[in-house]
């Protein structure tokens, strides 16, 4: 069965009418992942956009059909580890899943995620990376791209500024934990995402499975809603965010482009890079190229 038919046959585990921004590709990713994960799932939604739009709930109503809770920003993986330990102890197979932003994953919650990965806690950890603290109005995170405007890395009237440091390469950091499964996903490549969620479910019987979804944020980054998926696609087709997986230490590149588009085309989709000059764009291009080369080399090992 192809992915479209498969998804059509699966129940949407997220309630209709959650209050995500128009065109939000995180909502699409969440619904897709949860369809594949199915009803036998316990879901953690920490502080962040998906908490803010009501997936855990609002007063007496909930946004999810599966058991869902609101972990702290910095203890997502640890709380899930405890839940999973209980179900392993009583001998019940349950998907124990995080759907967490980059702040909860690469910053405040990194220690506990690293700990859970090292211990082999059998959870599925999905990070939706929209490069910052979006639910509080876009402050920078360690996942923010260099030169990006954010509300805490402003751009001067002369057009100088933005974030000063490179984006933390978090999927690679997770891969270095030697966990059974790491993969990157994009809302522009849904069949690829579906397959990876299925692989993560299988791998989580052996240890922690980590999925890193790259979600350009329309509201925060200044992207037109109708270009939501295009911006996602461009991040992959420029090799800015390559789709790959690491299965038990083996690196596999899932999408390879004979003539990758220049990073400038991806950068052109959003307001947050509007101030960048040619030198700065060239610097990002250089970084993308060198990281791609490294990934290629890893994939031949």
């Amino acid at each position: 069965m192809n992915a479209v038919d498969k998804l059509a046959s699966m129940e949407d585990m997220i309630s209709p009418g959650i209050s995500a921004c128009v065109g939000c590709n995180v909502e699409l990713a969440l619904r897709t992942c949860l369809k594949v994960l199915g009803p036998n799932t316990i879901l953690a939604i920490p502080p962040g956009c998906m908490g803010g739009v009501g997936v855990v709930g609002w007063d007496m109503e909930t946004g999810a059909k599966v058991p869902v809770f609101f972990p702290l920003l910095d203890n997502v993986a640890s709380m899930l580890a405890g839940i999973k330990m209980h179900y392993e102890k009583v001998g019940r197979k349950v998907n124990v899943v995080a759907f967490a932003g980059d702040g909860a994953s690469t910053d405040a919650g990194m220690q506990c995620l690293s700990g859970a990965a090292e211990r082999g806690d059998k959870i599925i950890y999905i990070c939706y990376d929209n490069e910052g603290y979006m639910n509080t109005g876009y402050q920078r995170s360690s996942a923010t791209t260099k030169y990006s405007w954010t509300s805490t890395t402003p751009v001067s009237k002369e057009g100088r500024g933005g974030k000063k440091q490179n984006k933390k390469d978090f999927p690679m950091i997770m891969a270095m934990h030697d966990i059974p499964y790491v993969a990157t996903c994009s809302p522009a490549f849904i069949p690829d995402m579906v397959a990876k969620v299925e692989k993560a479910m299988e791998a989580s019987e052996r240890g922690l499975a980590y999925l890193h979804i790259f979600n350009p944020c329309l509201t925060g980054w200044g992207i037109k809603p109708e270009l939501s998926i295009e911006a996602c696609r461009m991040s992959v087709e420029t090799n800015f965010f390559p789709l790959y997986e690491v299965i038990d230490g083996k690196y596999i590149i899932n999408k390879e482009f004979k003539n990758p588009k220049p990073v400038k085309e991806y950068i052109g989709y959003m307001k947050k890079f509007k101030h960048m000059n040619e030198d700065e764009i060239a610097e990002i291009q250089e970084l993308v190229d060198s990281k791609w080369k490294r990934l290629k080399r890893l994939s031949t090992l």
Partner: protein
Amino acid sequence: MQKVEILNGNKAAAIGAAMSRPGVVAAYPITPQTPVVEYFSEFAANGEVDAAISEVESELTAMSVVTGASLAGSRTFTATASQGLALMYEPYFRASTLRLPIVMAIVNREMISPQSVWGGQQDSMSVRDAGWLQMYAEDNQEILDMIIQAFKIAEDKRVLLPINICYDGFYLSHMTERVLIPEQEKVDAFLGSYKPEHIILDPEKPMAVDPLTNGVLVMEYRNKHLKAQQNALTVLDEVDKEYGRLFGREYGGAVEEYRMEDAEYALVTTGSMSGAAKDAVDMQREKGIKAGLVRMRMIRPFPKDRVCKALSRVKSFGVVDRNVSFGWDTGIVYQEVKAALYDGDNKVPSVPIIGGLGGEDISVGMMMDSIDRVVKAAAEGKNSECIWLMNEEEAK
């Protein structure tokens, strides 16, 4: 028949926890709590307990793992001290507001700075308003007995709150005493199993835990939480009596009174210092001073009525604190005892006393001096300035 063993406080705590059969245990080592983790891991390695243990990377994760496991339905145990407790404050507070009956031993240790690894109750006393129940043990037998009782109190439907069993670092954690070990089958019958009905993360019973909640509901949550704290006083009394019937050790509930029947002067203490205080009471009585002791076994909820009653007939009293209340110029328990008495319209002179910080000994001599100060306050008819128990020789 109960077995007799010679145990340090940490081993007594680990045995108490093991006998309570938790499903999930997670703890991060920190002096002076470390042996609790080691003993428990050893029991598990030898197949003596079947708990799942997580070798966590921090205290924040220790509390988070047991919170998750408790949400899923496990009985859980952890232990910490001092900086570890400070690090876990975020999930610590939340364990109580989620109404999870987690049991955590706190091996009381001084807070930094300056650096100190020795005893002091500043750690647990500083978090007394985080919604947990807090009890303080005097000796190793009480540590073991209270860890077991803690599960029964915490899991009672009228309570459903997490509980700390606190005991002094090194004075109890590393000192050995004779301890009676209750029979396992009797403990099993006493505790039963934990079956959560109020909160659960289970795909068979989908529930949303902690949606964004309006203030009216938050007020209701807090109101019920406060009532549950008060219920714990009743439940503690019942559990204390039942445990006494089964195992022959009854502790008097939230407060232990020692020679208070006809006492004119009282000391109020918490934890292991009470042993020295009891000796001092005996010695003062030999000198004709009608002294008595009130030992605070429970600090949260604060057993207001019991304290008022115990101190209702004295001419004056003093409270010895192994902690400080910044801004009050006294210890923490002193302020709380005074607040309780004010409620009861009892305004006899009192003496705030601070001692034993950073592991300093509180000697029988110091307790004798403390009682002298209490007698003096009655004669002068006014509250004393705060007394600091200093070892004059060492201070030089």
